[in-house]
């Protein structure tokens, strides 16, 4: 055999070595330099992004009183693979759960992952945590993760503050800021000021090994960020007034809204029945939420904005204002009243006849206001009943009725000032006139207002012609930064006409339906209402502002099924005004009466 030939085979062998080496280098170049997906996978393997949850901003009232703050709670987490040899009985006793509950939770956690921590028990209390902490070493595999939840030192303002809950998948899909497990404002101020209150989440990047054990921070924490607490809110709410209002409304269904007319700042905003906001916090939230939502008196309903009522007689001045503006009514206009025999609307009060606008407001005369309304619709200068109605409606809406006011709170209803099209639909175009829709003259029929709108209309009267969009937040953060500016809305009615109507409202308080509830040295201008409604007894309404000159407070009180405006809504409003202006209520008998009045 030719040895030389065989010796040349070394070249083949060497070639094989080189080819394999070359193939491997090409492959290595591909996975190391060209394909970047491996780097990503490596990071997913080893880096854990641990969210640092910020505490939400605190909430203060207009006088700097703390109304909402945060309390630390602890989510009890479990890492199933590290759990071994624990005294289950004692553990269950400490947590106040059953053995079945323990087994169930463990199974859920194991199903999720043996190597990743999952939530074992949400928001254990400070006390439980206290017990647990000392004995934690006996329960390997369990650890706590601090969170903060809301706490309310006074059990007031439930509807105002709203509540905070865990984000749902829908919210996460809509806004990528939120990640599973985050908290978010669901209603009230918590929702409308969510972006201010929530703060900025921090991030710690930790490295873990294959068993998900922490092995240190990534690059000495160079890329970590601390959580930044949310900004504080300073409300326009007067906590003392709010609390007083809630006490007065105990046992009654309805709402009280008070506004500072010159600024549109809401002083009190309450809906009754209410509930202690602490009930909708933390681990008891879902249980309580269910109880509250099943309650027949609907404590979760925010009647102040989401409740709509016929305004009844409190609406009469609005018709007067339109008449005055349209030149169809003046101080000398007189209409007669046949009392109970009046047609088409009878009068429920006993007073002189014929009478002028001031007395008509003072005495809440139905026939007078029907005549005013009829004149506007029938004789208005817009060339026809329908056009006259449209003009009337525009005036009414300029006073803040029939549309959302655009406050900084969530879930506001528009109320209803029916459109001409609506009547066309009901009666047929050209087949309706003032008589057909006469109920509107006395604030009945299709008209619906929210308590907030009614209070706002009182502010319009107080300002003699305009309102500032009502709102609850005065300042944000340390520097009390102004929230988004709230517009001044000027009505279509001239100031001089307001002076006339306000005079009528003043007479209501001195001589008319409200004369029994005068406040010492404070002149109140107001109007009662007793609104018929299809659901039961009449609603008791009162809207007012005080003092008559230089008004400090405009208020609306609506008490459902409480009868005459003068028997419930009026005394409550007068007490609120006294409380706000005098800071002290001297009419103890009236106060006592109202506190004890239980209507449901």
């Amino acid at each position, binding site marked *: 055999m030719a040895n030389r030939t065989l010796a040349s085979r070394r070249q*083949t062998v060497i070639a094989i070595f080189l080819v394999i080496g070359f193939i491997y280098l090409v492959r290595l170049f591909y996975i*190391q330099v060209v394909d970047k997906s491996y780097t990503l996978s490596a990071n997913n393997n080893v880096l854990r992004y641990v969210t640092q949850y910020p505490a939400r901003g605190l909430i203060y009232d207009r006088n700097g009183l703390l109304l909402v703050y945060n309390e630390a709670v602890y989510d009890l987490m479990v890492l199933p693979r590290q759990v071994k040899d624990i005294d289950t009985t004692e553990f269950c006793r400490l947590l106040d759960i059953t053995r079945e509950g323990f087994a169930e939770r463990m199974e859920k956690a194991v199903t999720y992952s043996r190597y990743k921590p999952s939530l074992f028990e949400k928001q254990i209390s400070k006390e439980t945590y206290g017990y647990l902490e000392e004995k934690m070493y006996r329960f390997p595999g369990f650890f706590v993760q601090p969170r903060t939840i809301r706490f309310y030192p006074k059990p007031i303002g439930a509807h105002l503050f709203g509540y905070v809950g865990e984000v749902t998948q829908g919210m996460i899909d809509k806004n990528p800021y939120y990640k599973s497990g985050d908290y978010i404002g669901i209603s009230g101020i918590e929702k409308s000021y969510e972006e201010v209150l929530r703060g900025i989440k921090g991030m710690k990047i930790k490295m873990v090994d294959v068993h998900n054990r922490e092995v240190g921070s990534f690059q000495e924490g160079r890329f970590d960020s601390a959580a930044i607490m949310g900004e504080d809110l300073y409300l326009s709410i007067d906590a003392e007034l709010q609390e007083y209002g809630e006490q007065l409304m105990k046992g009654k269904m309805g709402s009280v809204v008070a506004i500072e007319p010159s600024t549109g700042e809401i002083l009190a905003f309450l809906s009754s029945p209410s509930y202690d906001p602490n009930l909708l916090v933390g681990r008891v939230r879902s249980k309580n939420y269910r109880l509250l939502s099943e309650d027949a008196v609907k404590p979760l309903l925010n009647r102040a904005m989401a409740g709509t009522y016929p305004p009844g007689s409190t609406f009469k001045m609005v018709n007067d204002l339109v008449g005055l503006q349209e030149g169809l009514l003046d101080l000398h206009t007189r209409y007669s009243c046949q009392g109970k025999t009046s047609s088409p609307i009878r009068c429920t009060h006993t007073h002189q006849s014929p009478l002028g606008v001031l007395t008509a407001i003072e005495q809440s005369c139905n026939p007078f206001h029907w005549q005013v309304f009829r004149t506007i619709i029938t004789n208005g200068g817009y060339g026809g009943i329908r056009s006259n109605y449209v003009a009337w409606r525009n005036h009414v809406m300029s006073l803040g009725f029939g549309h959302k006011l655009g406050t900084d709170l969530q879930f506001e209803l528009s109320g209803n000032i029916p459109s001409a099209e609506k009547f066309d639909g009901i009666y047929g175009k050209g087949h309706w006139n003032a008589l057909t829709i006469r109920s509107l003259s006395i604030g009945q029929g299709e008209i619906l207002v929210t308590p907030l709108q009614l209070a706002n209309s009182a502010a319009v009267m107080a300002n003699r012609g305009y309102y500032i969009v009502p709102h609850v937040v005065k300042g944000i953060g340390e520097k009390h930064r102004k929230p988004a500016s709230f517009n001044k809305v000027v009505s279509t009615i001239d100031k001089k006409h307001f002076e006339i109507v306000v005079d009528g409202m003043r007479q209501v308080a001195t001589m008319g339906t409200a004369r029994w509830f005068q406040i010492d040295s404070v002149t109140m201008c107001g109007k009662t209402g007793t609104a018929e409604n299809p659901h039961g007894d009449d609603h008791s309404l009162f809207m007012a502002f005080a003092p008559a000159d230089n008004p400090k407070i405009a208020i609306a009180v609506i008490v459902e099924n409480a009868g005459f405006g003068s028997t419930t809504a009026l005394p409550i409003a007068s007490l609120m005004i006294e409380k706000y202006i005098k800071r002290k209520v001297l009419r103890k008998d009236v106060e006592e009466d109202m506190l004890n009045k239980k209507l449901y």
Partner: protein
Amino acid sequence: MRERRNLFSNIDVTLVVLYLVMVLLGWVNIYAAVYDEDHRSIIDISQSYGKQMIFIASSLFIALVILLTDARFFSTFAYAIYGMTIFLLLVVLAVGSEVSGSKSWFHIGSFGFQPAEFAKFATALALARFFSAQHINFREFRTRIIPLVFMGLPAVLILLQNDTGSALVYSSFILVLYRMGLSGNYLLAGALIVVIALSTLMVGPIYVVVLITLMAGILFFFIKRNRRNIINLIAILLLGIGFTYSVEYAVENVLGEHQKTRINVLLGKEMDLKGAGYNVNQSKIAIGSGGFAGKGFLNGTQTKYNFVPEQSTDFIFCTVGEEWGFLGSLVVISLFISLLIRIILLAERQRSDFSKVYGYGVAGIIFFHFMINIGMTIGLVPVIGIPLPFFSYGGSSLWAFTILLFIFIKQDANRNALL
């Protein structure tokens, strides 16, 4: 005195330097793979790198002993050494202890030892001895069958220990046979077998049968169409078809479930990232995340935090890839290729057939380990648990490779001695 100086001056410095560099790099990467803050000392013998330091020191001692031994000792006692290791392989089957599924370890106290590692160089010695005899003629049946017995005996015994990877190493001696005159067609046939097997698994037997029939048809027009050639062609065709179906049958019915999954994962037919595919996937992630220049010494995360299994033994190349990147991989692969080429070149300059054949044996074994080990970490070869020579952690393997290489260095140093 004269004798000694002569002895060391004839040693091939290149091989020794390559060996030392690789062993040292191996140690550095083992250190990085198992490094943690609590055990920084490099000679902490509770840690693998501390132990590896001892293995390295003892390997150097073994190397020195071999260099001081008479070169003729190994050729003289080649069969005896081979017989010894076969005996040990039999004993380990009877009384050995099992480590991760393979019954291949002797344990004496805390000291473990794997005879299979040593059977490799013993087989190389035996083959060298066989081929150094005068009348080598591959046309003789005897010349073909005896080397196969030498290779097959330890392979079967190791297979019985359930250590498939180490058994496969013996196929690397085909390189020796090739060099000694085995027809190149066998290499081609071997390659063809691998191709047929792989394509059968990937696309199914039908397509493969169609394809080889087509190829035989084409071949038919190119060969001399005499009776013998036609019979041969038909025989090869039938063999190929038979082989295709037996591969299919073997995978479906003979191979264990885990071997089947491993093959499927490699072929991309299965994505079993939690099971069989986990190792390879994590290994590729570790190497791939190294980038061009690597994450730097001790900065590897995938290997250090145990995402890669066996990161100091079979998957040591992951640490190289992750911490030193493509540049590091290039260096390691270049070192291996240089070593292999150097061995071949030295083998060719031997005057004694024994040394020449042994050299090819050494190159074959190292090449096979290199190809399988690195190929598996980058997902080109199924996961077969064999170490990367000189790099992987482990006393038996380091000693065995040291002995393997240094016997050759000793033979080479002695090449000018009278036969």
